[in-house]
């Protein structure tokens, strides 16, 4: 594929040099092509490759050209495309599409309006390129290149590290559940009903797709309120940095700083602390616990919590427009990559000490994270999204035809896959090993389903026993019950779904959804034919075959396995033909194979599948949409690691692009910066107040001032007032209170002189009775 792309590009550049000579005379607008192309490719050298890779291959060549050719339904429109057999097609088609990009309709290029169905004059072909999709973004990027703006992802990868954009990555729902569980230690079932994450390429954590829209914001609110209340009810002692006797406003400030650091994965600024203290003050009318609950509720709705910051600080030494992630951001990126949750105490401390920006500290923490059991859970989550098996529990199945697929069997299939993946990661297996290995794990449910006799004993807690399936029809990635079941139909196997699965998930060749306007009966149930025969008939229609010849012939290779992955001797009485072919395999052309075993060997023997595996990890690990260029940059490292499945996240983390980003002019540094030292718990220092000026009658009081918090540019002080006398005193104190007071509690204050303030009690504590005391305090910014 790469070779082909470069040759087309070379051809085009040559054509430009000749002034578009290749098309002269062949097109009524031919004479304009040369200047147009020269201008565009001159300004954006990757425009032609981008056109071919992102517009032509995915859609223009497969869908648009069907009508937009000289004798086609749309042959009379401004867009007439040549197919690839015609000399000069690329120059011609590039120019035709570029012209539509220059035509402006109310500020939008016609190129975007027509295929998206947004043009008021309509588009007979319907909305092929829906606004909001990746394809639409590519059309928009092409229009920008035509207009001279060359930004966006290059179609031809640059040499060297790939630096991604500066991002705010919303936690996906799994990350959110893990994070809340780790922060609060309470049940997180309230997060189960959230509006689902947008799924991009099978992944729920795509950086661009995840936003906080409409309903989700309200669901966050509701869940945050419940979680704040639950945390305080169940875990207050563990969460707040002070004992039951000292639960006051000062303690709240300590909590905000401490919990805030963990929730936001960075130290809070003074402004942050002031904002959350105001929430505490409002809700503490119902007591300390209420105040803390609402601080938690607010923090769980904060962008500081909901988005992972990958913004970085401008680092001109590293290059123009380069931003380097801060220690806090590195800790966060590592933690979510390996654990899918918030950094633990040790990682935060390493960040606080500035160790993650050093090679030694980074390597040490990376090794620690990768070796932790939590990394296994992330590997399992990746595998579920990569292979689509996350739907296993829900896929609908005909209860009569597939009576055997009980909830227990579904669970067993998931358990089998988890153990197979876990063992593959632990033993350093490669993708080829995973495809070919016949080692597996079965529990009695699955053993019964597959007709395999389990050896006595040796099972784990859930009843799974390691088995060698060499003598059976099972074994290897492609014969996992979970994989075969999710890629099937409610009442039958599905060559389409299984072929699509191999193509998109294992070979990384994406297919487009069926075009609107295509009216075709799908193969209906017909007991006189085998599944294969029904689908072969389906694909005789040329419009179907355009895409289905890439899918169905792969899927036919799976026909020995029914809709829940059981081996079958025949298909409803019909003989089974499981010969298949992978058409247009990258760099190999059409490759025939027989059965799942043959397909497994084919995939295991090709770098295409291993590169695809790494690319899938890039998508999952970095939230990128495409990942192709990153794979070019990471491949050598992955090969050096022996292509081990478990090496993928480490290779991603070790690449320079992991800790650096590219940003634009005028963009500002991250908030995730600042110094934090591991908090100790010394007794609050007593502030020397040798001579508090006191009001009438107050001179008999005992006054102690504690400084409870000091964050450098601000502080909080708490004052204990005791009345040792035998009578009631209405108190009034003038104390050192430098800076501007942000809050005062249990007292009112006014300025006396620079840095000195007078404090008097509120209605409820203005008077202190004999041998009783009261307290008040304030916080200030210096």
């Amino acid at each position, binding site marked *: 594929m790469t070779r082909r792309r470069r040759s087309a590009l070379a051809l085009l550049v040559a054509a430009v040099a000749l002034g578009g000579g290749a098309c002269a005379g062949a097109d009524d607008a031919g004479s304009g092509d040369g200047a147009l192309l020269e201008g565009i490719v001159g300004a954006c050298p990757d425009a032609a490759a981008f056109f071919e890779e992102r517009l032509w291959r995915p859609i223009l060549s497969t869908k648009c050209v069907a009508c937009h050719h000289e004798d086609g339904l749309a042959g009379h429109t401004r867009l007439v495309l040549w197919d690839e057999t015609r000399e000069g097609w690329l120059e011609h088609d590039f120019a035709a599409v570029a012209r539509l990009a220059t035509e402006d309709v109310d500020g939008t290029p016609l190129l975007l309006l027509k295929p998206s169905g947004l043009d008021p004059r309509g588009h007979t072909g319907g*909305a092929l390129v829906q606004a909001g999709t990746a394809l639409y973004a590519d059309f928009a990027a092409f229009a920008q290149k035509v207009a001279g703006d060359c930004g966006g992802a290059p179609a031809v990868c640059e040499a060297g590290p790939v630096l991604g954009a500066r991002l705010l990555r919303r936690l996906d729902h799994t990350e959110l559940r893990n994070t809340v569980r780790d922060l609060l230690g309470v049940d997180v079932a309230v997060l189960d009903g959230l509006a689902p994450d947008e799924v991009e390429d099978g992944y729920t954590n795509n950086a661009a797709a995840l936003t906080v829209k409409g309903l989700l914001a*309200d669901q966050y609110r509701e869940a945050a309120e419940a979680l704040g209340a639950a945390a305080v009810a169940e875990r207050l002692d563990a969460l707040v940095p002070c004992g039951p006797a000292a639960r006051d406003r000062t303690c709240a400030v300590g909590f905000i700083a401490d919990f805030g650091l963990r929730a936001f994965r960075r130290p809070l600024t003074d402004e942050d602390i002031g904002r959350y203290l105001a929430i505490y003050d409002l809700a503490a009318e119902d007591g300390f616990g209420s105040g803390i609950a609402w601080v938690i509720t607010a923090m769980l709705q904060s962008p500081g919590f909901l988005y992972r910051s990958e913004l970085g600080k401008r680092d001109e030494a590293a290059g123009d427009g380069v931003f380097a992630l801060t220690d806090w951001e590195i800790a966060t990126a590592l933690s979510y990559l390996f654990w899918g949750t918030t950094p633990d105490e040790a990682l935060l401390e390493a960040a606080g000490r500035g160790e993650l920006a050093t090679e030694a500290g980074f390597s040490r923490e990376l090794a620690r994270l990768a070796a932790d059991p939590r990394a296994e859970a992330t590997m399992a989550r990746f595998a579920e999204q990569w292979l689509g098996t996350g739907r296993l529990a829900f896929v609908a199945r005909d209860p009569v035809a597939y009576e055997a697929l009980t909830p227990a069997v579904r669970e067993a299939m998931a358990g089998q896959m988890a153990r197979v993946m876990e063992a593959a990661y632990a033993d350093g297996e490669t993708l080829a090993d995973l495809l070919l290995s016949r080692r597996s794990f079965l529990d009695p449910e699955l053993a019964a389903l597959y007709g395999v006799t389990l050896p006595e004993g040796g099972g784990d807690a859930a009843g799974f026993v390691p088995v060698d399936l060499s003598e059976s029809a099972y074994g290897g990635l492609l014969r996992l019950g979970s994989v075969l079941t999710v890629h099937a139909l409610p009442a039958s196997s599905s060559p389409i779904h299984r072929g699509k699965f191999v193509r998109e998930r294992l070979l990384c060749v994406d297919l487009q959804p069926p075009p609107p306007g295509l009216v075709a009966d799908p193969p209906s149930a017909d007991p006189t034919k085998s599944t294969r025969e029904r689908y072969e008939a389906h694909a005789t229609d040329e419009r179907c075959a355009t895409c289905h010849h890439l899918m169905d012939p792969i899927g036919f290779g799976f026909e020995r396995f029914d809709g829940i992955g059981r081996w079958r001797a025949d298909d409803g009485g019909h003989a089974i033909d499981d010969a298949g072919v992978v058409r247009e395999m990258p760099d190999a052309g059409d490759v025939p194979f027989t059965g799942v075993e043959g397909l497994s060997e084919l995939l295991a023997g090709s770098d295409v599948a291993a590169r695809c595996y790494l690319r899938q990890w890039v998508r999952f690990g970095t939230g990128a949409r495409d990942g192709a260029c990153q794979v070019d940059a990471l491949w050598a490292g992955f090969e050096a690691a022996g292509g081990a499945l478990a090496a993928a996240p480490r290779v991603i983390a070790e690449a320079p692009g992991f800790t650096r980003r590219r940003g634009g002019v005028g963009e500002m540094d991250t908030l995730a910066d600042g110094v934090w030292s591991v908090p100790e718990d010394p007794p609050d220092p007593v502030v020397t107040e040798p001579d508090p000026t006191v009001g009438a009658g107050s001179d008999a009081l005992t006054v102690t001032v504690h400084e409870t918090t000091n964050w450098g540019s601000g502080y909080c002080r708490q004052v204990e007032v005791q009345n040792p006398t035998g009578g009631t005193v209405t108190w009034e104190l003038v104390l050192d209170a430098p800076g501007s007071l942000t809050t005062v509690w249990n007292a009112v204050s006014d300025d006396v002189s620079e840095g000195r303030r007078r404090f008097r009690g509120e209605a409820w504590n203005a008077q202190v009775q004999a041998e009783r005391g009261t307290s008040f305090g304030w916080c200030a910014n210096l």
Partner: protein
Amino acid sequence: MLSRMKGVSRRTFLAGLGASAVAGPFARLLAGAASPARAAAPPARAKRLLVLFSPNGTIHAHWRPTRTAGGGFELGAGSILEPLAAHRERLLVLDGLDFRNATNHEGGMAAMLTGGGGLQTESRGMSVDQVVKGAIGGSSRFPSLELGVQTSAWGGGVQTRMCYSGPGAFVTPDDDPRHVFDRLFGDVVGGDAAKLRARRKSVLDLVNGELVDLHGRLGRAEQLKLEAHLEALRDVEKGVLGELTACDAPAAPDVPAGSTYDNDRFPDLTRAQMRLAATALSCGLTKVVSLQMAHTIAPTVFTWEGLGDGHHSLSHSGDGDAHGVAGFVAAERWFAAQVAFMTELLLSYPDPDAPDGDGTLLDGTLVLWAKEMGDSRLHVCTSVPMVLIGPAGGALRPGRYLDLGGRSHSHLLVSVCQAFGIPMQTFGDPENGSGPLSELA
């Protein structure tokens, strides 16, 4: 000329004149032609909108009502619409409406409530419920409510969404009746509402401030994310801080936690959402509700009807496949029975607009039961089955079965808007035609 105009749509004609030279002698003549009492009466308008959706097209032979002598119609025994037979006089069954420039599951889903238009059109790429929300929703605590039943197992996409706030911009339905209940009645059930609202407001203000601060540090693409977030917070604020409902909270939905995507809970979830929809409308919490049951291509298995195949698979049963067709009809009849249930709920509440307690909630409500395709076996969006229920405050004349002979369904969307007094002439792509379906009034 004049008499024809009166007969067809005098109201619409006046509404159309509204913005221009209303005071002309011709308009006065029209007004004077009516009796004083009628002249004083406000135009017959719908006050509330309820859009229902069920997926995967239909099989017309089993859906079409039977015409009877004298111009009436019947919902034949065993037919898809038979469960609505008790409400026949309340129905406007619309046959022969086509979606222009749309076909197949995705095309139909996208065009169904939008008419396929872009930003430059009168409806600006919005779905009809969102347009009506813009016109009449503003004064409600919830300008609109989008409810769903198992719409989101595949995430949000063209297949799983029917409501649009703009071209390509989905409005996510809430699939969890328990969450809907909390949004609607959470601050009425126990606790100190004033305190709760004050705290919620301060949290929202705080988060808002943080988002604004963060916004300034970012590149444009990331700024757009935060702008969407800020927009969402404005809706949250309206929901949690809007006027307190005067209603007593109903019983909480009897749906277990974690069952939102349990196939066999589909019926319970549907009825729970319908009860909430009816209560919200009757309490004046909102005037615009949509309820999306499943989504196009949904594989829901109607086990409660004894079926084994998924709904989408059944929908493609050819005429030769008697078993498959019977299964699909059974599933479709179940949907019709739910629509009947919804109708009965609306009939069970008094009309909130009638001072003397006369009438029912249905009287001022326009109910549209929409589908996304015509014949499901052909993947086409011609003769898409649509049903209107209720008099819509007098804007509709129900009790009829109309064959619209292949007209664009954009006219239906225009009619819905005009029933609310929105003076629109086109909906979605203007090429699809202008004006309402005058037959409906």
